């Protein structure tokens, strides 16, 4: 029984990495900048379709498309931030909801138009296929890859934000706009970069998730619920919080399906409700 427990923990952790990549950007924009960006998963879809397009239409290798997916997500978020979001930083959060839901609808229709409603999948390189069997335990290669990428991104993110001067400037601008402007920090540029970073990570997350859950134009709506759960449970504006929440929810979802499948979809919602009632501000929430 122990072997399957380790297997489930590993799968859960890998699935958590995926959820983390998809939601960390939203935790930053929603938490620190107080901007309700429900279109966050559309950025993920942009990254996903960028990878799909490069691989199937232009024959790029899988790994080469990942940075492009990041760029695609970052680019689309810069465009949206500069044209639309900028005007709504001081608007009510309800108006922000309406704007971003509108963008989700537009993205769903646009991708259905360009890529049809067909369920897309990609051929990852062989060394990412199949699984390693170690002492009765199965570790899927792709999931190991996800864990490695997830941990690397988390380390880079924390290093960048905590250690570099530019990272410090972003945290300052995002934490207290007025004070940061007082110190001469170009807050607009910091906001734009924060959105780009969040959008890029989502794009990367979208690209990485094709192999696990597939990709079709309704991705932006289907995964919005899960991303919101991770952000709320993790705590606004805290990268560590999102990481912890993504891992907890990933493992509990996987374990739920394995050990008490009759609970099915109830489990992840029960875990969310319980965690929120215990820690309303989230596991590591600042506010």
């Amino acid at each position, binding site marked *: 029984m122990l072997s399957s427990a380790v297997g489930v923990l590993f799968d859960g952790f890998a699935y958590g990495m995926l959820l983390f990549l998809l939601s960390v950007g939203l935790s930053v924009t929603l938490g620190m900048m107080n901007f309700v960006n429900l279109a966050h998963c559309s950025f993920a879809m942009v990254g996903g379709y960028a990878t799909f397009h490069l691989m199937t239409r232009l024959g790029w290798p899988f790994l080469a498309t990942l940075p492009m997916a990041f760029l695609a997500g970052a680019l689309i978020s810069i465009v949206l931030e500069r044209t639309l979001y900028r005007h709504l930083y001081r608007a009510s959060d309800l108006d922000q909801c309406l*704007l971003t*839901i509108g963008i989700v609808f537009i993205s769903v229709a646009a991708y259905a138009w360009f890529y049809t409603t067909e369920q897309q999948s990609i051929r990852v390189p062989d060394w990412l296929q199949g699984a390693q069997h170690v002492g009765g335990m199965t570790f899927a290669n792709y999931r190991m890859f996800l864990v490695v990428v997830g941990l690397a991104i988390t380390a880079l993110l924390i290093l960048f934000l905590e250690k570099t001067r530019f990272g410090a400037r972003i945290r300052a601008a995002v934490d207290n706009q007025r004070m940061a402007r007082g110190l001469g920090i170009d807050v607009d540029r910091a906001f734009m970069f924060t959105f780009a970073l969040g959008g890029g990570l989502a794009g990367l997350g979208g690209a990485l998730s094709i192999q696990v859950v597939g990709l079709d134009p309704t991705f932006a709506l289907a995964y919005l619920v899960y991303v919101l759960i991770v952000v709320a449970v993790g705590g606004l504006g805290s990268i560590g919080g999102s990481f912890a929440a993504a891992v907890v929810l990933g493992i509990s979802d996987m374990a739920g399906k394995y050990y008490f499948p009759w609970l099915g979809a109830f489990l992840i919602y029960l875990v969310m409700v319980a965690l929120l009632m215990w820690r309303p501000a989230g596991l590591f929430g600042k506010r």
Partner: protein
Amino acid sequence: MASASSIASTHFHAKVRWHPLEIVFWLCTLLPFVLTPSYLSLASQIAITALFALSLDLILGYAGIVSLGHAAFFGVGAYTAGLLAKHYWSEPLSGLVIAAVAAGVVGYALSHIVVRFRHLALIMLTMGFGLLLHEAANSASALTGGADGLQGFRVPAVLSFKFDMFGRSAYAYSLAVLFLCFLAARRIIHSPFGLALRGIRENALRMPAIGAPSRAHLRKAYTIAAVMAGIAGALLTHTTSTVSLETLSFGRSADVLVILILGGAGRLYGGIIGAVIYMVARDQFSGINPQYWYFWIGLLLVMVVMFLPNGILGGISALYKKSK
């Protein structure tokens, strides 16, 4: 001293009196019978969605509670009415009352948890309860018929007016119930309790400092909103004789939130105007272009937010003030 109290009471009287525009609006709701007889079933579903949006407005527009799971009460009302018609009797008016009570009980129970939270935690909890109820209805397929929807019941007519394909009695029934609930909502808004709700929305922290039991007020508002949402759900069951999991879905909760924000929250008419515009636009766009109409609805939402902040009514009243 008469002059002192006269100023004061005129201040409140002015707010309560019916504005001529309101009367014109409610007369216009009768036009579909004459102008668009073949769109009456659409009109009936718009009236039902308007009632659903009105119920959300009570807690969002007036008490500041953002809910992403309001379809839970809509669905409870819909299923109660359906199960009643299937196992007991299919007379709709009594069905409405029982559905309203059922939704109210569920609303009252959940309100004890919901009022203790704020901001994102509150939104996610309402969403969580909505999703849990949806899953419960799906797995209790023996009772609810699961994904295939509740089968084996029909609601033939209301007060000897047969529900038929043309939707005449459906629209009359939905509109009448919408109007009655609207009157109730209007009374509530202009009552002391309505003033207390607006106080909570304006400054929830100050309310205890003036001796207001905020949580009790919020619980009552949440329950009233649940009752009204349950009535809307039951109306859909009666007028279409169908009940499905979709009445409990996250999609319906998100749609009604979009409709209310589109129309403008906190103005009683926001939900109704939002429902008319959103559903007519959706019907026309999807008629022209069944596969990609989402694009145009998305564009409409973006345009409204960019040019009419605080929804259509909010934007118009701002333009009106600016022009004065």
